């Protein structure tokens, strides 16, 4: 009996141990599944029935001052195919089931995407040659909704679609120089697209949902893993209609005169806002490759600096007046050649006998020697200070990408020739924007306002951020500015281009410039940069127009740029309903 009891006890003990072992195994497995591998397993099971898809945040628009879309985002579609699955299939039509061969399907797709059927067959065979189990190849990138729908309707089982949010520029080359463009991958590359990328950029989100066996989304199963963020809209100060007109006029004249390039800037005198900035040649952001040279794809008005020439004399005259060292009627004798004591050598563009000119007369005749005699009344440092106050030597407040600051050497480094050359716009460089800004300050009673291209970044809730500062600074006194404007009006009335730039009904202040162009190696080329800058109505200035044409081979003088000034200024005054001037301009004597 004793052995019997012991063996039964042992059996019981064994059973209990076994039981515990089994339970322990279950517990371990349970912990492993429920806790250790819970996340992976959950994800795996969800993966079998859940679908994850990107939710595209849309990149912000670039708008003109009136809300016209200059750059917008549209949905485009990439057509892809699975080469390894490319096989004939049956299609149900009204006439029953039809077998469609690969060649036939390829021809159908080709007809819709502007390719040949053979080229699509080549895509398939090419992909298969590289990789036998290839499952992915592009047929066409970024096709529009109409093509997408047409191809989708073919119901080819081995054709797939991908969403591809793309950029579209409805106005084409209108403001294309400013708006810039993005790469096919959506990377900002130039212009405001690049400069304002932090405002425009969007973030894509992800949402997952579960689907049933028939592909239908299960109710209540949509989970947004990360929210898509739309980009903000960049509101510019540009008027797209005026911009078009200005580009048109500029392109026409640049072609007629054979100019290498040209720019036109239209700026509001009382706000500093740019209403139009035209460049020739320009880029159509919808077709960037259509503009061959990379240099022609940006905006030279911002990125190219040049020696401004005689348009700069307005700045020197205003500085001298502000310092109280001369009046519009101050008299000098302007010789053809002037040899100041410091060893410089200044001459006028064409030979002439000594002229008895007032400061007004110096501007009318655009005499370099006369301007030198007024300019030397100021010290170099004083003139340098005036130039920096007028915004030279640093990029404007517009913050355009790759904007040029121009070259303005410190006055201590000026050699004797540069000391005089800087009085009439040589020996330093400015961008078209900086020239425009000088005239804006003169027109605005001596108050220079920040150059403004962007009004701000507008978010979905209507708030504006990144609004630029608009506080101006008094560069010259109001009376000096007023006197300069009066003198420039005399230039407009009595200058040699008076007949060419006449705008009936308005008082206009303007100055021409003809500057030699540097060849980039310290010397000058034979070409000239011809320009006209001015503002109107002169009695109450509203708009600055600044025109520059580089090397117009067929008409190498400011007579080439004057018609552009005339047409653009007329259009600006007409468009903005500027009130025609009443009183006649004060007559200032040019000679004595």
């Amino acid at each position, binding site marked *: 009996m004793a052995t019997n009891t012991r063996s039964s006890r042992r059996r019981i003990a064994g059973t209990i141990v076994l039981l515990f072992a089994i339970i322990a195994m279950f517990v371990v497995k349970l912990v492993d599944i429920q806790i250790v591998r819970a996340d992976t397993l959950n994800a795996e099971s969800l993966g079998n029935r859940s679908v994850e898809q990107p939710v595209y945040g849309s990149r912000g628009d670039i708008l003109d001052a009136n809300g016209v879309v200059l750059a917008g985002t549209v949905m485009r579609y990439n057509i892809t195919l699975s080469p390894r699955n490319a096989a004939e299939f049956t299609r149900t039509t009204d006439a029953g089931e039809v077998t469609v061969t690969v060649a036939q399907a390829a021809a159908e797709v080709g007809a819709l995407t502007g390719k040949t059927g053979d080229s699509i067959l080549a895509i398939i065979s090419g992909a298969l040659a590289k990789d036998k189990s290839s499952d992915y190849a592009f047929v066409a990138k970024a096709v529009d909704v109409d093509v997408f729908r047409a191809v989708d309707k073919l119901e080819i089982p081995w054709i797939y679609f991908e969403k591809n949010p793309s950029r579209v520029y409805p106005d*084409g080359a209108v403001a294309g120089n400013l708006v810039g463009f993005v790469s096919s991958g959506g990377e900002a590359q130039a212009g405001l697209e690049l400069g304002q990328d932090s405002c425009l950029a969007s973030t894509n989100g992800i949402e997952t949902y579960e689907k049933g066996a028939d592909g239908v*989304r299960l109710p209540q199963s949509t989970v947004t893993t990360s929210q898509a963020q739309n980009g903000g809209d960049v509101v510019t100060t540009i008027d797209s209609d005026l911009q*078009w007109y200005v580009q*048109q006029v500029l392109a026409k004249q640049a072609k007629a005169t054979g100019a290498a390039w040209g720019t036109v800037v239209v700026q509001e005198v009382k706000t500093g806002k740019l209403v139009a900035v035209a460049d020739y040649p320009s880029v159509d952001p919808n077709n960037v490759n259509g503009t061959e040279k990379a240099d022609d794809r940006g905006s030279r008005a911002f990125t190219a600096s040049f020696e401004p020439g005689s348009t700069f004399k307005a700045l020197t005259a205003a500085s001298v007046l502000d310092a109280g060292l001369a009046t519009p009627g101050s008299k000098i004798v302007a010789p053809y050649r002037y040899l100041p004591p410091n060893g410089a050598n200044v001459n006028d563009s064409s030979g002439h006998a000594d002229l008895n000119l007032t400061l007004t007369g110096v501007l009318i005749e655009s005499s370099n020697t006369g301007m030198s005699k007024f300019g030397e009344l100021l010290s170099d440092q004083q003139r340098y200070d005036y130039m920096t106050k007028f915004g030279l030597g640093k990029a404007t407040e517009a913050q355009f990408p790759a904007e040029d600051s121009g070259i303005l050497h410190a006055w201590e480094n000026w050699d004797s020739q540069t000391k005089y050359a800087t009085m009439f716009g040589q020996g330093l460089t400015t961008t078209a924007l900086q020239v425009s800004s000088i005239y804006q300050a003169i027109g605005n009673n001596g108050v220079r306002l920040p150059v403004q291209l962007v009004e701000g970044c507008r978010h979905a809730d209507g708030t504006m951020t990144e609004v630029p500062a608009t506080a101006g600074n008094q560069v010259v006194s109001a009376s000096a500015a007023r006197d300069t404007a009066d003198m420039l009006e005399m230039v407009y009335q009595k200058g040699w281009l008076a007949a060419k730039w006449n705008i*009936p009904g308005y008082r206009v202040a303007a100055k021409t410039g003809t500057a030699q162009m540097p060849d980039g190696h310290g010397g000058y080329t034979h070409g000239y940069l011809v320009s006209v800058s001015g503002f109107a109505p002169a009695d109450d200035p509203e708009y600055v127009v600044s025109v520059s044409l580089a090397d117009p081979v067929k008409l190498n003088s400011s007579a080439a740029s004057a018609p552009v000034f005339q047409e653009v200024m*007329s259009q600006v005054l*007409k468009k903005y309903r500027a009130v025609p001037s009443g009183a006649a301009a004060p007559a200032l004597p040019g000679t004595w």
Partner: protein
Amino acid sequence: MSDNLARVLRPNWDNTPDPVQAPDTRHIEIVSTRSQRRARPRIVYALSAVAGMATIVIVQLLLSVGISQGAYEVSRLQASQVELGRTAESVTEDLVRISSPQSLAANAEALGMVSNSNPVYLRLSDGAVLGAPASATGSQGGSASLVPNALLAGVPLVTQLPQGTGQGAGVGGAAAEPAAKVADVAPKAATHGIPTPATR
């Protein structure tokens, strides 16, 4: 019980008098009181409970059928919303494209309009004419392509549209159909491109 033999037991409900016992034994029975009888469960309750459960099951079934039906409906509507969204986008794109300055200028010129770059003003206070009136020379003539727009490639001018389709006729395929419908009810389609308003 130490064996497993079946025995016939005398049922205790057998009320027949035991023939062996005394014949005068009286029959006594406990009669439940009225309240006791009333308190006893009735079949009605059972039935209503079962019916309730059945109703709940059926309603639940119907609801889930309804929800899954709704899922299909939602799915269908979402698909159609996506489709309509695409149509709206495509039509808007067409509209924005033909609203571009290049398109407007080219169409205006095709219709014979020219821009006059000589602004002339009439001052109302004294009737003075400011500016020199001159006839327009068509300053932009033939130069509409100087500011290119790749989006307008292949878009016909108003004057190149087939006659009788009305001025709104489609630019893109999506716009063509509704525009044609509008043309059916439009008063009178333009015959020379310019619609003339009927003045009475």
